[in-house]
């Protein structure tokens, strides 16, 4: 029965995020937070494996201000317990720091594990690196961009999406797998599950317990500026009957050069 760890990052909700009208910097402090999209796919996959093969699902999350309510969402979906490292130092974390902190959380708190699941990329950083970094730290195989996964006991078989098509691979466990949005549709927890999740353990872990030194917590890559990309569009809106819209659409397309050979 597999012991699984799922790395779930809380990020700003990029779908609602607005830039400052003058500086163009993201207005992060006013933004909502959410669980990073693909991480919920990773969690869903772990829960499905558990439903089929038994075992345990532990959620780990690190961030400058990890919101318990969002962790509860993961527990309500079906994770058994969660370990959380919430520390302002994480505001500057790069992939190196994130992977180091997560590896300590896993090693010191989550206990023995057979499979770590991550999102292929986080919603905010979109770095595609934490999963492979974790695998390197633990010196285990990893498979990224997975859109179908089979748990085979001492191995996993994974279907990964690459530019050339789908690469089917297999590797020994313990292993790290990163997934994208295609692998499944994360469940929406029912009221009953939400209530049941209130009793599940959500453990806050401090810096000292993880033996995190300043060196480990110092990023090697430092973000020095973030600015919105701008495009100016005409924003002409057409409403009306389908016939009118269809005519106007055809007119617009032809005026914009559509139909030229």
């Amino acid at each position, binding site marked *: 029965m597999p012991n699984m760890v799922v790395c779930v990052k809380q990020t700003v909700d990029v779908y609602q995020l607005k830039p400052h009208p003058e500086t163009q910097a993201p207005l992060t402090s006013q933004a909502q937070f959410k669980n990073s999209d693909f991480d919920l796919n990773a969690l869903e996959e772990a829960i499905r494996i558990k439903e089929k093969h038994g075992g345990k699902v532990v959620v780990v999350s690190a961030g400058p201000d990890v919101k318990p309510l969002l962790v509860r969402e993961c527990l309500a979906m079906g994770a058994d317990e969660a370990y959380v490292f919430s520390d302002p130092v994480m505001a500057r974390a790069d*992939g190196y720091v994130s992977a180091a902190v997560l590896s300590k959380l896993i090693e010191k708190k989550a206990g023995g594990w057979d499979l770590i699941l991550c999102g292929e990329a986080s919603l905010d950083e979109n770095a*595609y*690196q934490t999963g492979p970094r974790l695998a390197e730290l633990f010196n285990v195989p990893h498979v990224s961009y997975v859109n179908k996964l089979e748990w085979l006991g001492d191995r996993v078989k994974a279907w990964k*999406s690459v530019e050339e*098509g789908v690469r089917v691979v*297999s590797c020994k466990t313990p292993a790290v797998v990163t997934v*994208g949005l295609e692998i499944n549709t994360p469940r929406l927890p029912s009221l009953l599950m939400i209530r049941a999740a209130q009793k599940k353990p959500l453990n806050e872990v401090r810096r000292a317990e993880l033996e995190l030194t300043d060196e480990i917590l110092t990023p090697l890559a430092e973000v020095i500026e973030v600015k919105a990309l701008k495009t100016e569009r005409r924003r002409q809106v057409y409403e009306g009957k389908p016939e009118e819209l269809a005519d106007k659409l055809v007119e617009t397309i032809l005026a914009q050069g559509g139909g030229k050979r």
Partner: protein
Amino acid sequence: MKALVFSEKAMQAAGVAAYLKSVLPGVEVSAASFSEPSQDELGLLGGAGVVKVWMLPQSAWAAGEPSASAALSELVAKTEAEILAVWASKTGNEVAARAAQRLKAPYASECVSVEKTSEGFVAKRLVLGGGYTSKVLLKHSPFVVSLKASAEVGVGGQKPDVEKFNVSSSGPVIEFVELIKPESAHVELEKAEAIVAVGRGFKKKEDLSMAEELARLINAEIGCSRPISGDLKWLSEERHIGLSGKRVRPKLYIALGISGQVQHLVGMRDSRTVVSVNTDPNAPIAAESDYFFVGDVYKILPLAITRLKEKLGS
């Protein structure tokens, strides 16, 4: 200053090498390869200014990404390269991340540019769904970047020397089972002058025929949002546009039943004119359109197709 470039494909390695040469004057670029480069490939690399090709054992590549990155890390250390620059294919990203961890090196992935500033090396990349650019300072060397940037490769440069490099390190093994290739023919959306892009506003695969008919009439390529190729598999992966797909810049982009989430927008932002049809007047694509039609594709498209046929006489 020494740089090592890597890609599974010589063409892309050459592109990255040429890019580095263009932005970092004086850089000495070597390339790593897990197979014996052909004369053509050596010509390409030479044209890009690569002075040396290090040949790593094929077996290190066959054993999968962990072992390929171990081999590359060893080469970086031995040759004292300050920069490891990898073409940001999916495999490239995996290899670069693991190599960065192994080398305890600063790493920026999927960069659109790299420059040397008074503060040090700074890479630019897209973040927050692709709606923002982030400048990242790589605080020491060696550092690792995966890049989607390339520059024109010259012709007739001197062919680089090839030298074997035997590795002593290895990584955990990934076994290859099979490659399932998509059936579709190759498309180059990046070069299309007009694109008709479809999203989840379409309810069934068969319904895409409306969009395909429109595309045929106006001589456009078909593109799509990620769920259409990824989740639903109605179109091939190569047609998906956005942060994790293609970045396109046609003269005309027609978005049909696409909400315009930030990750999609980044792929089509450079289009000259954007026309969209969506039932929801508040869809994010509205603000990113030049002409926004509030309506149902199922009602508007059949009428528009008939009308177009009249006008174009086909």
